[in-house]
């Protein structure tokens, strides 16, 4: 549910004259109908917009004040459907799966919500109902003042007709257009692997959204409860004090999440008043929330509770709790020591390398348990989360002792050893033979006999040209590793 003109609901902004709200980045974030008719669009620079319409009234966004007014709408909607998620003042997502059944259908639910919000905030709302938030927001954005709601039957077919700019990824939209891809449907029809190889993870992200799959990318399970809680004694009675504490809590939360390589796309803010009452709100973001974004949202929410409708926080704030949710490895916040520009350049350069060699050509690896050198490596594509099949800390009796061979062919290579009375004497390297100086082994390898693997004997062979790890199976000698 979206009030696109919510930031303009301020004293001094006439509704019948052009008005625009500008964000901290100097870009237009909201326009009223008159300004829209004059040619001003969201995302424009302030100067450009004022050049198009010199008489436009410009207001700076004040999320905190906007949220105080919007709290009333959230409260009314939450009274009908629980678990409302706030994106920003004026925009909320509401999971309606249960409520649709309760109210007897989507139309009846929308009718009920419209009645309540119309009563508390008047018209100007847009409602989109779809399977996912991306489609729901665009369904709401596509409505008009005459028919302010749109119920999407099928997300994929609805999204297919939208312009490619709907993915909101400036870095790839122009290239898509240049390639003749002008709608989300055309993008969705392309194979994901082709998009990934040309555009990397940004392209994959766009393809995912265009296909109607707006679930969390690269999701992470929370290894332990990382919720940050602060109790105050004496209770806090001042918003500035609470905001200060919230900043420290947000930093602590992001630091703990960074240690596990995750960032939250959703947070639950919970405040406990001295009288024991607890208030809670969920905030969601399309981009991962960093500590500044979390602290801001906590501040907006606390001010909305204090100055907005309801009982406020009686007696002061006794406890504050921030719970992270929807964790993902995408967009993790850089730590203080990390250079954001360098990280971004690295990402771009590696994405380019990945586009050249293909998805399976750019890899990372993490340790996992195993006996053979090759078994101890869990490979994964760069940009994807690591997957460990076996515990590296578990005992692996019989594993090849260190130091490990630096070169391990993916498949054992034929190797020629000359034996004399059961002892290796020469090995062939290319076209020449080199003398064996010493060796260790044989080490019997039983193998996974239940999977049909043959037993073998491993040797470390040391020559004047280096050391080699080899294995003899069924009378055939194989090179397993080179100690290069």
């Amino acid at each position, binding site marked *: 549910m979206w009030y696109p003109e919510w930031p303009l609901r301020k004293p001094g902004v006439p509704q019948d004259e052009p008005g625009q709200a500008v964000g901290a980045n100097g870009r237009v974030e909201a326009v009223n109908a008159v300004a829209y008719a004059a040619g001003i669009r969201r995302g424009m620079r302030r100067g450009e917009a004022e050049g198009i319409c010199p008489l436009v009234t410009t207001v700076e966004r004040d999320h905190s004040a906007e949220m105080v007014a919007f709290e009333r709408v959230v409260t009314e909607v939450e009274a009908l459907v629980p678990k409302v998620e706030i994106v920003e003042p004026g925009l909320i997502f509401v999971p309606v799966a249960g409520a649709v059944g309760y109210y007897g259908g989507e139309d009846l639910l929308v009718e009920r919500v419209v009645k309540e919000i119309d009563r508390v905030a008047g018209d100007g709302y847009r409602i989109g109902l779809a399977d996912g938030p991306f489609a729901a927001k665009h369904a709401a954005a596509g409505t008009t003042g005459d028919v302010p709601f749109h119920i999407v039957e099928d997300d994929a077919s609805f999204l297919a007709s939208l312009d490619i700019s709907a993915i909101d990824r400036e870095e790839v939209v122009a290239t898509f257009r240049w390639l003749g891809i002008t709608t989300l449907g055309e993008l969705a029809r392309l194979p994901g692997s082709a998009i990934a190889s040309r555009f990397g993870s940004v392209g994959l992200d766009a393809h995912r959204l265009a296909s109607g799959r707006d679930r969390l990318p690269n999701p992470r399970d929370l290894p332990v409860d990382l919720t940050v809680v602060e109790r105050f004694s004496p209770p806090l009675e001042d918003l500035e004090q609470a905001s200060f504490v919230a900043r420290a809590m947000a930093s602590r939360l992001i630091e703990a999440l960074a240690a596990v390589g995750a960032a939250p796309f959703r947070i639950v803010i919970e405040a406990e008043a001295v009288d024991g009452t607890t208030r809670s709100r969920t905030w969601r973001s399309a981009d991962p929330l960093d500590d500044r974004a979390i602290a801001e949202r906590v501040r907006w929410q606390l001010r909305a509770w204090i100055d907005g409708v309801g009982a406020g926080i009686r007696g002061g704030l006794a406890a504050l709790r921030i719970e992270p949710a929807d964790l993902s490895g995408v967009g993790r916040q850089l730590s203080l020591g990390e250079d954001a520009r360098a990280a971004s350049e690295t990402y771009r350069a590696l994405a380019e390398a990945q586009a050249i060699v293909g998805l399976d050509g750019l890899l990372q690896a993490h340790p996992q348990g195993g006996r053979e050198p090759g078994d101890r490596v869990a490979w994964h594509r760069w940009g994807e989360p690591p997957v460990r099949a076996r515990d590296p800390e578990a005992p692996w009796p019989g594993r090849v002792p260190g130091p490990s061979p630096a070169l391990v062919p993916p498949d054992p290579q034929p190797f020629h050893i000359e034996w004399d009375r059961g002892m290796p004497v020469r090995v062939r390297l290319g076209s020449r033979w080199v003398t064996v100086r010493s060796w260790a082994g044989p080490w019997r390898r039983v193998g996974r006999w239940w999977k049909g693997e043959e037993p073998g004997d491993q040797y470390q062979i040391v020559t004047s040209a*280096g050391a080699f790890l080899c294995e003899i199976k069924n009378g055939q000698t194989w090179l397993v590793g080179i100690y290069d």
Partner: protein
Amino acid sequence: MLSGDPGLGMTRLGLVMLSGYTEGTVAYLDVRGWLSPVAAWEVGIDPDRLVIARCHEVVRWGRVAAALLDGATAVMAEIPSGAKDVSIRKLAALARNRGTPLLLRPIDRLVPTGVAHLVLEARETTWTGTAEGHGRIEQRKTRITASGKAMKGMTRTIEMEDDGSNALRVVSGVAAAETRSAAG
């Protein structure tokens, strides 16, 4: 440049050098697909910071190496046997321009003269720890010659010990120094 037959320890020496770059991402361009990351972890490279690009096609090799040089803190690149001299020269020039350390490891080929600032060539290696069927390999001593612009016309022979960790020790700085006239 790290030169020498496979088995003489130059891959591990290169990994030890990469482990010295503790910020950002280090990259290894793997032409054969044989690099074992276990060896990289043993010398102290953080798994999260190591990216391995596999590319056996000569045509793409130069482009991939150039992309890695753009983004990584340091790059170790194997050179495929079919790579053209001009590609290697361009790559070396790009590394100098970017200021990114580039370790070249030729596979079955020579590197054109004048490309490398420092050439380390493994001559011989000996392992201790194994006997006639007993023990396991434990420690390696490698004799390496160092030459190139960085050596100012000198060729020095160095002995290094390696026990699998990143504490690669130079045990004999100038075991046998030779003086050669600088090549033009």
